[in-house]
């Protein structure tokens, strides 16, 4: 295997090993310094990846490198997925450090696990072979089993961990079974061979069955209805930074895989999978938006919100056009930034509000203008208010759906957008107009202010100047579809 293609993955793996060894043999180094060092290193790797395009070259969005006999590809989508993984991990690590407080013995271990999940998504983004897909996906999922249950003294966290584990194990099983059926149909696990069989006029029954089972398994990762049942419970129970990580990295990984799998491996079976994706999109939109209305915990609400957003993105996948798929990547960018903002604020207030009750956000506007502003921008972007990133993202999805002729789905999506606006605005109403429970000011360190300011600026910039992001996403998807 051409080992140089794995440079960025190896860098992360080395960082993980170094972190573990230093933590083990030099216990006197304060944990938060180690964690901060890891953040700096990861930032360095991210910078390097952005700068060089990992060897694919200057026009990395269109170039492609293949290794491992077609198992591992390095193209625009792969690099995009890796960068997404980096940023998601960075935000989650910073949030985790803020959440943990000063004396947390397991901080470095958690950072290690987060890096492992990041590594999983990096591999997944490049995988074009079902064996690698499964290994990478499980690397992400298994890490999350541990992370979700990592507050061992908190009953809710442990409960969520067990639920996630059992539900996830079943989904993985379903997915693995699907892969086995694909192997049975094609005699290979590579995407290229699968594509050849799928392009036949009447693809074998086994292949169809395999695809359905894999979509069900992926539905779990994406929290797409009707496979989303775990999401609200686990989102609520998991420690807040883990929820943030789950909402961003897990979703990003699922969509990168979905986009590659459906365009590259199963591009020939559009008529078959299109209705399935459409139904999943519609159900996710309904469950995600309607279910969130009467929630009282912001974390649980974010669980429903995440289901609804999956619905919006599936709308783009269902449009089976470059505009739709490119829109998904754009959507994920805005979604990552807005979620990092919202969960960042949640971590800041988690000390006094462990269950993230919405009514305890009352008076936040007066207590800390900064945090309230960050939460405001994050929520407004999630609900799709112009000129923020979420607005353009939704617009792109609607446009793709319209051009794809999916009028019913578009109607459901518009309805869902309005309904979800209600529950986001409800939080904002509490924040600025509610009768405050606590009145003392919240102190926010400068570093956090800087990060949140940058994120908010990012949300505005991506929304106000959609050009470069949109062009990049489109170029990546066009290159993928063109091969």
């Amino acid at each position, binding site marked *: 295997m051409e080992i140089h293609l794995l440079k960025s993955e190896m860098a992360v793996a080395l960082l993980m090993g170094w972190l573990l060894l230093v933590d083990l043999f030099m216990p006197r180094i304060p944990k938060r310094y180690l964690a901060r060092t890891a953040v700096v290193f990861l930032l360095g790797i991210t910078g390097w990846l952005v700068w060089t395009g990992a060897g694919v070259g200057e026009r990395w969005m269109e170039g492609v490198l293949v290794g491992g006999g077609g198992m591992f590809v390095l193209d625009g989508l792969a690099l995009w997925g890796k960068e997404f993984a980096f940023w998601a991990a960075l935000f989650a690590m910073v949030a985790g450090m803020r959440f943990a407080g000063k004396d947390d013995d397991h901080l470095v271990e958690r950072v290690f696990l987060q890096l492992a999940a990041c590594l999983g998504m990096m591999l997944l983004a490049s995988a074009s072979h079902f064996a690698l897909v499964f290994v990478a996906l499980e690397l992400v999922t298994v890490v999350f089993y541990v992370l979700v249950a990592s507050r061992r003294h908190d009953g809710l966290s442990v409960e969520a961990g067990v639920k996630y584990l*059992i*539900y996830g194990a079943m989904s993985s099983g379903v997915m693995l079974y699907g892969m086995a059926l694909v192997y049975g149909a094609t005699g290979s696990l590579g995407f290229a061979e699968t594509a050849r069989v799928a392009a036949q006029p009447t693809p074998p029954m086994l292949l169809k069955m395999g695809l359905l089972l894999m979509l*069900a398994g992926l539905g779990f990762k994406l929290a797409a209805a009707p496979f989303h049942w*775990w999401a609200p419970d686990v989102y609520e129970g998991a420690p807040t930074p883990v929820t943030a990580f789950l909402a961003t990295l897990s979703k990003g990984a699922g969509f990168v895989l979905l986009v590659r799998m459906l365009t590259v491996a199963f591009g020939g079976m559009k008529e078959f999978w299109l209705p*399935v994706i459409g139904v999943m999109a519609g159900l996710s939109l309904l469950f995600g938006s*309607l279910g969130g209305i009467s929630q009282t915990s912001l974390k649980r609400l974010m669980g429903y919100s995440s289901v609804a957003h999956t619905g919006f993105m599936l709308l783009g996948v269902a449009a089976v056009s470059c505009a739709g798929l490119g829109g998904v990547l754009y959507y994920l960018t805005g979604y990552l930034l807005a979620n990092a903002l919202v969960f960042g604020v949640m971590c800041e207030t988690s000390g006094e509000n462990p269950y993230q009750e919405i009514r305890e956000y009352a008076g936040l506007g007066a207590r800390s203008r900064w945090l309230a502003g960050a939460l405001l921008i994050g929520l407004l972007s999630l609900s799709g208010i112009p000129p923020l990133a979420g607005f353009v993202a939704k617009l792109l999805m609607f446009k793709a759906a319209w051009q794809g002729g999916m009028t019913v789905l578009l109607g459901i999506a518009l309805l869902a957008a309005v309904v979800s606006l209600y529950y986001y605005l409800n939080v904002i109403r509490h924040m600025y107009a509610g009768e405050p429970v606590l009145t003392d000011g919240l102190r926010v360190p400068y570093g956090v202010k800087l990060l949140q300011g940058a994120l908010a600026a990012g949300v505005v910039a991506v929304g106000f100047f959609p050009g470069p992001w949109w062009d990049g996403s489109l170029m990546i998807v066009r290159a993928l579809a063109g091969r």
Partner: protein
Amino acid sequence: MLLWLILLLPLASFAVIGLFLLNRPRLASMVSAGTAVTTAILALAAIWKGNSVEPAAVFSWLRVSHLRIDFTPEWDRLAQLMTFVVTFVGALIHVYSLGYMKNDAGKARFFAYMSLFMFSMQGIVLAGNFVVMFVFWELVGLSSYLLIGFWYEKPGAAEAGKKALLVNKLGDFGFMVGILMVWSIFQTVDFQRLGEMAWLSVTGGNEMSAELKSWLMLMGLLLFCGVAGKSAQLPLHVWLPDAMEGPTPVSALIHAATMVAAGVYMLCRIFFFLAWIPDVLTVIAWVGGATALFAALCAVAQDDIKRVLAYSTMSQLGLMVMGVGLGGPAPAMFHLTTHAFFKALLFLAAGSVLVALHHEQNIWRMGGLRAKLPVTFLAFLAGMLALSGVPGLSGFFSKDEILMVAFARDKVLFGVGTAVSFLTAFYMTRLMAAVFAGRARSEAADHARETPAVMLMPLVILALLSVAAGYSFLGVKDALRDFAGFASAAQAGHSPLAFWILAGVPFAGIAAGWLMYRDVSRNDALACRAPLLHRLLAGRLWFDELYDALVRHGQGGLTTVLNWFDTWVVDCCGVKGVSLSTMCLGNLLRCFHSGNLQTYLIYLSLALVILIFWKLALF
């Protein structure tokens, strides 16, 4: 690069003051004034380089299918001339404001708004397409609102700001619909691309269908709505006199020299395009002429020094609009430039009088200021003579050009213009006589003292320009003579008869004014001799009352009905019904999430089974 600096420096100044310097008024005023002066110098440098200034980087803002919105600074002769006016007059007025606003409590806020205004105004000037222009158009409206209502604790100022905003919105709505029509007819909003199209269409214009013609007519009129709002043309003129509640430098900069001229500038910018719809131009010319005459009449009977000047501004804007409508954009821009100089001068001189008199604005409580404020008097005199169009000063040259076009095109409008010219000289003489001649008629006027040098210096510079800007050696006169965008404009011949009429009329006006107001008492001579006429004019033909009644009875009745509809039909049946049913549905869906893992797994298996049956067994 240079152009971006000219555009963005004021924005930076606004941001810095707004974010950091609100508690440090002295520094804030220095930052703002310094920025304005720097911008003016940069603008001069850019104009010096002219068309050879390196093209600013295209900044593509928005691309949706084939709608493309770029921030590309337009830098043709028209933009250069207007940039010169905006930055130069702006810089002088900033310096003047240092003195005028010296002891105001909200000084930092004032300068922040002024910087915001400079940014927005420069944006209009450099805009290369309708959408960008509209964005800055609205920003200018916002900063104008903020500055009119600057002393928001005064109820009059707050009301005036609101009025200006609402009336402008009315015009802007038409403007926006017009822009949408441009987009739908031509599939582009870019001035240059529209220009290319219009050239094509002029040659084949005869084959235009009647339907297209009427659409174009509607489009032109809607675009003119924006102009009518911003440049205070009939019937959207009511906000401008009230806008004088703002600080005097604001009146000078925004409501005399630059912002209100933005409408005229916009007309010139799209002239190539309007020239193609002659009917619209005719409407524009008549609206302009009517405004000019109406405002000049109103100015004769006002008692407030700033209101006289406000009506005079309106009247001159009417002349410019008439000029464009008659097919003479170059004379209109020429008059815009000279008018910016002498009207800013008049306002600043009036401000100087107000400072000396502790903000006494009634001209019948002034008098005898010639000896007490000699510099202000001379400056005011220069402005007055230029405005009246006395031969040899800038106002004469520019007004002469517009009226020459009128003479060649439409004799009736030439008559209107001549009447306006006469009235202008008349009411300005009245103003001069009441303010500067005779004896002091109030205690404040008796104790008046000349204002500080920082305020007099801009006065002197503007006075020199007001005198000289008309001569061709300064280049203003011929700046747009061979501007490509005006290729289809009328070339007026020179008529000796018109020339002698125009040269004589100002003297007639001055003489009439002097005869009537030579010995000023406490009261208006017109009110004594023709009380009915005076009441009619002082009441400004009761436009405000008419609008008030219209709003109260027409809109008021409509809102009562709508309110009933909203309360009982929309809220009760619509909103409550929808929200209740949504809530119920949400609660129903929530029941699925029991928290029980076994149940979840059953759902999962069920979903899987249904999926497989649906996709594989049924088909």
